[in-house]
């Protein structure tokens, strides 16, 4: 790893993004506090932080922008009305919201019998969505995260997390044993976590080097 890499703008961008992500999670308690006091500022803050990520997943599941927006709205309505059911000890707020959004989206798919058509669509749709404006959405970030995952892990994670497939459905679709799905999933998560860890180390390194350079320059 060269100093040039460490202090690159990309590295800094990632640093700030990663830091912001952590701050977001710390701020969950503030959002929840607002919501429990029936203060709509909590609703607005939750939407600003998690709206796009949730919409991305919902849209990939239902593949219909209008329906996806309805489900997104319903998800935040549930956050507003059922916030007392959220237990911060069990999960972070995003996990809870994601669970509501995915279940609503999957219910909608079952209800409207879209499932067959959707699941015969090409898996490439996910990639196109995140790279452009397919399905009427605008990508917020084509992060290096996905690109750093092995293809076989990325496909699996996309299917399960972003498109709502169950493990057995993935096994059937990819024609691999269920045990392989479980193993690959663990490896995918492990790789994802490693990527985030190395990003964090990289960012901290960037800051240290920047500080050193500033000190040297001031001497």
């Amino acid at each position, binding site marked *: 790893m060269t100093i040039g890499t460490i202090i690159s703008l990309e590295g800094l961008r990632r640093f700030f993004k*990663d830091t912001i*992500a952590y701050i977001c*999670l710390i701020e969950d308690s503030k959002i929840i506090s607002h919501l429990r006091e*029936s*203060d*709509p*500022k909590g*609703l*607005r803050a939750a*939407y600003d932080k998690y*709206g*796009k*990520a949730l*919409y*991305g*997943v919902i849209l990939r599941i239902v593949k219909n*922008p*209008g329906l*996806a*927006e309805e489900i*997104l*709205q319903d998800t*935040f*309505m549930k956050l*507003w009305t059922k916030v007392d059911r959220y237990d911060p000890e*069990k*999960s*972070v707020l*995003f*996990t809870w919201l*994601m669970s509501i959004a*995915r279940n609503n989206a999957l219910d909608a798919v079952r209800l409207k019998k879209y499932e067959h058509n959707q699941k015969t669509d090409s898996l490439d749709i*996910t990639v196109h*969505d*995140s790279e452009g404006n397919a*399905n*009427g*959405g*605008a*990508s*917020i*970030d*084509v*992060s290096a995260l*996905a690109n750093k995952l092995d293809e076989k892990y990325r496909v699996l*994670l*996309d299917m*399960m*997390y*972003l498109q709502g497939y*169950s*493990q057995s459905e993935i096994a059937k679709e990819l024609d691999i044993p269920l045990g392989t799905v*479980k*193993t690959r*999933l*663990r490896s995918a*998560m492990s790789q*994802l*976590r490693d990527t*985030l860890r190395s990003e964090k180390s990289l960012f901290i390194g960037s800051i240290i080097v920047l500080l050193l350079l500033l000190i040297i320059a001031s001497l």
Partner: protein
Amino acid sequence: MTLADIRSSGLLELYALGQLDAHDQSEVRAALRRYPELVAELREIEIALYRYAESHGLTPEGDVVEKILRDYPKPPGRSADPSRESITTSENKTASSGRGLRGLLSGLFLAAIAGIGVYAWQQSELSEARASHQLELEECDTKTATAQAYAAQLESVFTDQYRPVDISATEAYASARIELLDDQASNQNYLRVIDLPELAEGETFQLWSITGDNAPVPMDLFDEKGNGLIAVGKVNATDAYAISIEPAGGSTSPNMDKLVGVFAMAG
């Protein structure tokens, strides 16, 4: 399950992905209570997934956030717009700083009165909602019982024992659709109504039995419409049944101008 078991099983990952059944979820929760160090690990997985989802985030085309902030169920006394509320709160704070103790106490008193009023109103709303819910439940029970009875009826008549005969509708009532289920073994038939013409005030449908050159024999009266089964009488060796529209109470001979159709039984 030991700490190592949990770590090597992949259950934490599946838990964060929402892929566990209730049993495995409770296993993980128990493990999280038993081994607090797992919580940090779970959070790391959740953050990784959040980052992954965020990196695939999309912006809705519509004004979803405006709809959410407009449509969320508002508690009494709340402003719909958070930014406006923020301004209002700020103004109120500034204003209140200039008031004396009396003003503050008056304000608190009024707020308490308003609070009691709101509480009473909420209780009243709650009570009404409960009553309405109870009514809906009762209505639901009634509909369920009716549907179950109908299903049982359908189950009993859709057997080989019953011969279905479609109506030959007359030109005047060409859209009429009704089926006669002829019971081969008992003295009862059923009419399965699919579509029948509207009855005017004081009218009824009447079933007739027609045998040879004899005058039609009046049978059952009915005024039911829509999907449903109607038990009617049976005349052995009848050539045909007919349905006509008659004055309420029925007639002794059919009004041929209002003959809906005929079920040909011969053969």
